[in-house]
């Protein structure tokens, strides 16, 4: 196979629930070699784990299926490869569902690769028994305190197993828990033959992955510097990384789409959800974000270059989820005059009634939307509000207390301050709190499995 001069990797989804038409736009509005889609947030796996326990054919991102139905004809005709972590806790079932869609659409010869082995939920006791503590990497707490309430445990794999699946001929690669950045780096490893010690190149691919991983957030969405002058956000072009074998990457978007790709839109995304920029840790490499250089290289085209990286750590990150009690949230809207004063009085009355009933909560949180829910105590007092939304929320281990809270909110409409509305949703019901437990595990204890299957 002759090495390509460059490849175009298009971001199609920044999170589960992102713009559903984006994947179709990315494969149909211009040239694309790879489409990458991220579906998994921190605790998504626990939701999928529950779905799978109810039905062994579930446990993956179901929203992926209608997208696949739309894009498969283009993918087949233009030989575009698709990489996504939407396989969730059941990538095999996801694969079978896609084969079914492909069969109906008359797409022939489709090969799908599945990457799994990330799910270590069934091995937790063995791991704890053999000296792994799986302690919380943020707080240092021992896993024993939440062991019985654990709902899922998945290792974050990186780009290399995905690149292996591509090398075996997969046109679609479905993974379980894989890093967002790995989805973008994988095609570069496969196409350009990058190796585990090509630290700078791997880091360049990781930086491209970070720019792509939140979809439109690097191409004009949520752009703070000059949002008014971002053209045609209704038809926002999701970002595309044009990657070159030496590690230079150009970020762009399809011609004729809306949005904006500029040094400043890229800067905002580079600063998003990072810690120490010198140590952006991934399974493949440690990328140094302070080394990144940016240059406007044309309209909606930014050159990203000179990225430096160093050897990866000996650990994979583990993402676990556990049940941590219940919460409920409710709102009421108070109108002019004295909207804020009335909402504040309603909050006091409600708290008094709950106290009289003997209910205590781990946390009781009150905010006034229109006044302080964004900036809390930094919000200056406005002269007069036309209306304000009282938003109250509680959290506790005791489901009944949380339920009792829900029963105290709506009665305020007839037994509290006047001109109140917006109670149409009924009483707030207790929801389970699923909390996140990040941890580390030595790489030698977990091996990714790559499995290829074809449709005849």
């Amino acid at each position, binding site marked *: 196979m002759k090495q390509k001069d460059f490849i175009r990797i298009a971001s199609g989804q920044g999170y589960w629930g992102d713009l559903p038409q984006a994947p179709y736009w990315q494969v149909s509005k211009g040239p694309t070699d790879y489409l990458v889609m991220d579906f998994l947030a*921190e*605790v998504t796996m626990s939701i999928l784990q529950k779905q799978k326990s109810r039905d062994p054919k579930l446990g993956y991102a179901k929203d992926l299926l209608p997208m696949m139905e739309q894009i498969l004809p283009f993918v087949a005709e233009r030989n575009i490869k698709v990489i996504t972590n939407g396989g969730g806790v059941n990538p095999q079932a996801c694969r079978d569902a896609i084969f079914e869609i492909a069969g109906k659409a008359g797409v022939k010869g489709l090969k799908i690769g599945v990457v799994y082995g990330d799910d270590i939920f069934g091995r937790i006791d063995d791991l704890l028994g053999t000296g792994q503590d799986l302690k919380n990497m*943020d707080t240092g707490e021992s896993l024993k305190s939440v062991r019985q309430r654990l709902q899922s445990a998945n290792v974050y794999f990186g780009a290399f197993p995905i690149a292996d699946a591509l090398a075996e001929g997969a046109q679609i690669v479905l993974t379980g828990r894989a890093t967002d950045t790995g989805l973008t780096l994988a095609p570069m490893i496969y196409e350009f033959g990058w190796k585990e010690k090509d630290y700078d190149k791997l880091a360049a691919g990781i930086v491209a992955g970070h720019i792509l991983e939140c979809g439109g957030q690097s191409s004009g969405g*949520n752009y*703070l*510097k000059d949002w008014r002058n971002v053209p045609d956000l209704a038809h926002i072009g999701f970002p595309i990384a044009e990657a070159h074998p030496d590690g230079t990457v150009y970020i762009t978007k399809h011609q004729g789409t809306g949005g904006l790709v500029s040094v*400043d839109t890229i*800067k*905002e*995304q*580079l*600063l*998003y*959800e*990072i*810690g*120490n*920029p*010198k140590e952006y840790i991934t399974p493949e490499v440690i990328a140094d*974000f*302070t*080394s*990144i*250089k*940016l240059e406007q290289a044309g309209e909606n085209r930014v050159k990203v270059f000179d990225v430096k990286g160093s050897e990866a750590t000996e650990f994979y990150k583990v993402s676990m989820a556990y049940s*941590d009690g219940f*919460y409920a*949230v409710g709102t009421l809207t108070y109108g002019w005059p004295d909207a804020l004063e009335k909402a504040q009085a309603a909050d006091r009355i409600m708290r008094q009634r709950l106290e009289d009933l003997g209910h205590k909560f781990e*946390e009781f*949180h009150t*905010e006034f*939307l229109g006044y302080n*829910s*964004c*900036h*809390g*105590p*930094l919000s200056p007092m406005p002269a007069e509000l036309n209306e304000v939304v009282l*938003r109250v*929320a*509680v*959290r506790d281990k005791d489901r009944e207390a949380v339920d009792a809270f829900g029963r105290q909110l709506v009665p305020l409409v007839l037994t509290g301050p006047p001109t109140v509305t917006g109670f149409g949703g009924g009483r707030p019901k207790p929801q389970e*709190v*699923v*909390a*996140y437990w*990040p941890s580390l595990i030595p790489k030698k204890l977990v091996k990714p499995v790559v499995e290829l299957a074809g449709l005849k």
Partner: protein
Amino acid sequence: MKRIQLIKLAHARSGDKGDASNVGLIARRAEYFPILKEKVTPEAVKRHFTGICRGKVERYELPNLFALNFLLHEALGGGGTVSLRNDAQGKTMSTALLRMEIEVPDDFKIGD
């Protein structure tokens, strides 16, 4: 000396890392970066976020991007899925930081 609100000098983006909020602060012009480095110290940011940030504030420099990255620990009510905040992920912490005022010399010029 005169006081200037950071929104005139910088733009920003914020998000969550567990119970910490990350706020990236980017100079609107390269020439504003030195004064941001000098005045927007971790101590000043911690003071500004009184009542919101209960932990420490860490600051990192990204000079190539004329940017600073702040980590505000214990600022999101437990973080992610545990937080009861409307803004559980700290998406609006960016502009909360841009409300901050710093002192600059009287002859400090602000471009268009």
